[in-house]
């Protein structure tokens, strides 16, 4: 009888130990995958922001200051620039769209329906533009805008949906001064 009880107890303890091992292995894998996804998202989103900054550097180039800024909204920024002084202006729209129920960041040029950049998946936060004049006052008239604060939060799904289910997110906040409008 004692041997039987010992065997049952050993089986239970062994079972608990094996379950703990398996759970730990799965957790380690989930945490590792999420960390890798986070690093990947940071790398990709920083690359995207670098390209966005290069587009924003063109604001007002080659066009009159009064024609540089076309529209300033919370989730849409529209501006123009020309390849040369007096050349035909390009119109760029940087906007947040809802595609299949998810917020996306896209950049369009010259009225084309195909974006020149994006779409990139954003979180529920999406993007938020805040515009400032030369004296750091927010939300001035379009003709007085001299720099923009852009906040965007990129999102990436986890690799395993059954364990540690959460979205990987990376919020980036940049400021871009439109130097062409200062010259």
């Amino acid at each position, binding site marked *: 009888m004692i041997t039987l009880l*010992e065997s049952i107890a*050993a089986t239970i303890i062994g079972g608990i*130990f094996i379950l703990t*091992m398996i759970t*730990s292995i799965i957790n*380690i894998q989930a*945490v*590792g995958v*999420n*960390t890798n996804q*986070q*690093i990947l998202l*940071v790398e990709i989103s*920083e690359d995207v922001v670098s390209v966005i900054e290069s587009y924003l550097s063109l604001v007002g180039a080659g066009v009159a200051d009064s024609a540089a800024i076309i529209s300033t909204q919370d989730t849409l920024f529209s501006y123009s620039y020309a390849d040369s002084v007096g050349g035909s202006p390009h119109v760029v729209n940087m906007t947040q769209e809802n595609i299949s129920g998810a917020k996306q960041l896209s950049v369009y040029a010259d009225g084309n329906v195909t974006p020149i950049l994006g779409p990139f998946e954003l979180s529920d936060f999406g993007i938020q533009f805040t515009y400032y004049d*030369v004296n750091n006052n927010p939300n001035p008239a379009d003709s007085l805008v*001299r*720099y923009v604060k852009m906040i965007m939060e990129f999102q990436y799904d986890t690799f395993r949906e059954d364990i540690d289910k959460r979205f990987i997110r*990376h*919020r*980036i*906040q*940049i*400021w*871009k*001064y*439109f*130097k062409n409008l*200062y*010259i």
Partner: protein
Amino acid sequence: MTTGQIFLILLAMILFSTIYLTAYNNLFDQADLAYKGMYILNGQKITDKYFQEIESNLLGEIVLFDSLQAIYNGLSDTLTVSDIDYHINISTTPCTKTGADTTTVTPEFLRIDISIWAIPPDGDTLWIGMPQFPISKVFVDLYY
């Protein structure tokens, strides 16, 4: 089960737990490094904001080069990014091509040093450009 066998099992459990703890520790170190990198990137963007501000104001002659020291030397500011406060300290040093030059009244070059500190959720102070080793940029007086 003999006492020896029980001790062997206990020893195996202790050894196995050590391996798990080490693996977890390494993983959380890696995650900590990834998140700290994000905070550092935010801090670098803040320094870039100030450098852009100075460049733009100089280009537009909104601020004169000789006024930069009065405006920015000793300036402290706080900006909140992603619910974390970044405390910014700016100092200026007149310089020439050979280094700092505090004797010239109207210097041709001015070095702007920025150091930022923040306290991320883990509670440790994170420096982005320390006072001894700040993030620096040299500006030139275009009309010297």
